[in-house]
Structures are given as structure tokens and as C-alpha cells.
């Protein structure tokens, strides 16, 4: 029983650390809480039997680091979109190309001249 909770706490705390470093840092809260609970249970059980293993304290340390990273990220990282210049250029270029193509299309819904459309040069 003691072993089981210790292993669960180790796994959960490692998972929390991994998640907290990734962009999904918010999700690290779930394994953090789990690791804390498992760690506390393992700690309590091993205290009862006398000997507390260092590894349990280590999981607490990992969990606290994970929580600290998560909190820091959620407080200080602004949510923004960067590097959109390429996309903006593409949008502008795409519109130019589209206008050229549409010029060759006969737009009128009812009266579309097929020969006109066939002329469109798709290859770029």
C-alpha cells in the first residue's frame, strides 16, 4: 500500500513537471494535486511504520516546482500571436491573385459563360 502510493506520487509529480514546462502548463494542476494527495498518504503511512523514505519528499519538491512554474506562467505570460508577417503577406498576395482570377470569371449567377471560365489559367 505504501509502495503503491509512493509510485503513484512519483509518476504524478513527474507528469506535473513535464506538463508545466509545455505550453499546456495549466493542465499540470491536475497531476500536481494528485501527486500531493498520494505523497501525503504515502508520507502518513510510512511515518506510521517508522521510516520515511527520501523519495517521498522528493515528489513533494517536484510537485511544488511544477506548481510554481504553472503559477508563474499563468500570471506573467501574456497570450498573444506573434510572427504573423508571413501570413499577412500571404493574405495580400492571395487577394491579388484572386482578383485576377475573378476578373476572368463571369460572375453573373444566371448567365455564366462557360467558354469564359475555361480560359482561366490555373497554373501559377
Amino acid at each position, binding site marked *: 500500500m505504501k509502495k503503491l502510493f509512493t509510485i503513484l506520487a512519483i509518476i504524478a509529480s513527474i507528469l506535473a513537471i513535464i506538463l508545466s514546462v*509545455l*505550453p*499546456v*502548463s*495549466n*493542465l499540470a*494542476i*491536475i497531476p500536481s494535486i494528485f501527486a500531493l494527495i498520494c505523497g501525503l498518504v504515502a508520507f502518513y503511512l510510512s511515518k506510521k511504520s517508522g521510516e520515511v523514505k527520501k523519495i517521498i519528499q522528493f515528489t513533494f519538491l517536484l510537485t511544488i516546482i511544477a506548481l510554481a512554474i504553472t503559477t508563474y506562467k499563468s500570471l506573467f*505570460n501574456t*497570450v*498573444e*500571436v*506573434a*510572427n*504573423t508577417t*508571413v*501570413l499577412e503577406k*500571404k*493574405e495580400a498576395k*492571395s*487577394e491579388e491573385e*484572386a*482578383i485576377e*482570377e*475573378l*476578373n476572368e*470569371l*463571369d*460572375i*453573373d*449567377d444566371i448567365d*455564366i459563360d*462557360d467558354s469564359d*471560365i475555361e480560359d*482561366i489559367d*490555373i497554373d501559377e
Partner: protein
Amino acid sequence: MMSNRFIIALLLLALNLSAQNDAIAAGEKLTYSAAYNMSGILTDIAEVTMETSSVKTSKAALLRLKCTAATYSKWDNFFKIRDLYESYVNPKTLTPYLYKRDINEGNYYKYMKYTFKHKTKTVKSQLKKKNNFEENKNIVINSGTKDIVSTLYKIRLFDYKNMSVGARKSLTIIFDRKEFKGQITYLGKETINTAIGKKECYKLAIGSNQTDVLKGKNSNFLWLTADGNKIPVYGKFKIPVGNGELKIKSATGLKH
């Protein structure tokens, strides 16, 4: 007899008018943030914008519908998305003439172009991928088939005010050179809080007969404001673990 005919003609006219664009103006810009929601914990993923502008060609004035998706900077090193979806449509009926999709996701690139020929009911498609891969294909479509972008806007033109709860509308969409039927169900009014204020909304369920699209039926919802603009303010989409959310951040250039 004469007056009956007149009334029928008037009704038809009214029906016809209701299918016209009375909600979408050129110069409208809607910004959303797409987030992943897992048991209440939100993670922002990307910014989605929907923009309209008028485009003048030598023969007509068209409406350009543009949707972009770009991941937030924290994701760029892991999985960078820069997607561009465009549709050039008739400003009154939202009938598409030209559709372009340019997606850049991580290392994946795909370009798709449809040229609609409504008279012959065909679509000329052009697919481009990395390493100069190119494929041209002609697809036969049904009348009224729209691309995904103009469908998104078309949803806003339905007359929800006079719709009863549970009423359905079906739409034919062409995506990845295949046609599939989409269906929206009106679920009534609901008031929700959004970034642009508390809004009374029409709640819609979005389903399709292709079951593998976003898994399951009636688990995708969309909220449109219950005013003249009918802008989508909130969307909820079921994915295998957790769900995706689309929340409005700002709306400018609205018609009403």
C-alpha cells in the same frame, strides 16, 4: 382569386428576401480565441479571425470572406499553425465563386483551390502540397453546395426568429474535394456572458451525417447573437478527450 395570387407572390418575395444577406457587411472583423478545455481548465491555443471585405473585379463587386487561424506564441516552437481560408462570394446570396485554403501546420503544408462553375455544377479544384506536388481535379456538385467558409457565414442568414425549437436546416458542404451534408438544429434562445457583454443568443447544434467529423452527433454547439448581426459568439466542440471552445474576443464593423 387575384388577391390570393398577390398574397402568394408577396409571401414568395418575403421568403426570397429572408434568404438574402441582411446580417453581414463588408469590413466586419471578428476575433476569437480557440481554447482546449479539460475538466474546467482552459488552455488557449490559437487566435481565429473572421473578416469580410469588399473586392472589386472588373465585372462585379464581391465579398471576400477570410478566416485565419494562428497559434499563440507559446505554441509556435511546438506546433505552429498559420492557416488561411478564403472565399469570394456574391454579397447578396453568399454564393461562392472562388475558394482558397492555405494551411501551414507544423511541417505540413496544403493548398486547395476551388473554382465554382454554378452553371455546369462542377468545381475545378487544385491541390498543392510540399515538394511541388500538384493535382487538378474536376468535381461534380449539387446546386447550392458551398465551401466551408461561406457555409459558416450562411448560417447567419437563416431566420431564427421565426423558427420553432428543434427546426433543422441542412447544408451541403464541399471539403477536401468531397461533398457532405451538414445539419444545424435550432435549440432556442439562451443568454450567455461573453467578452463583448451579456448577449441573448440563438443556440444551435451542429451535426453532420459523416459521423467521424468531430465525433458523434449533436455535441457541437454554436451560439449566435439574437440581434440583426447574428454573429457567432461562442462555440463548443466535442473532441475525444475534453472539448474545444471558441470564444469571441472582439467584434468590429458590424452592420447593425
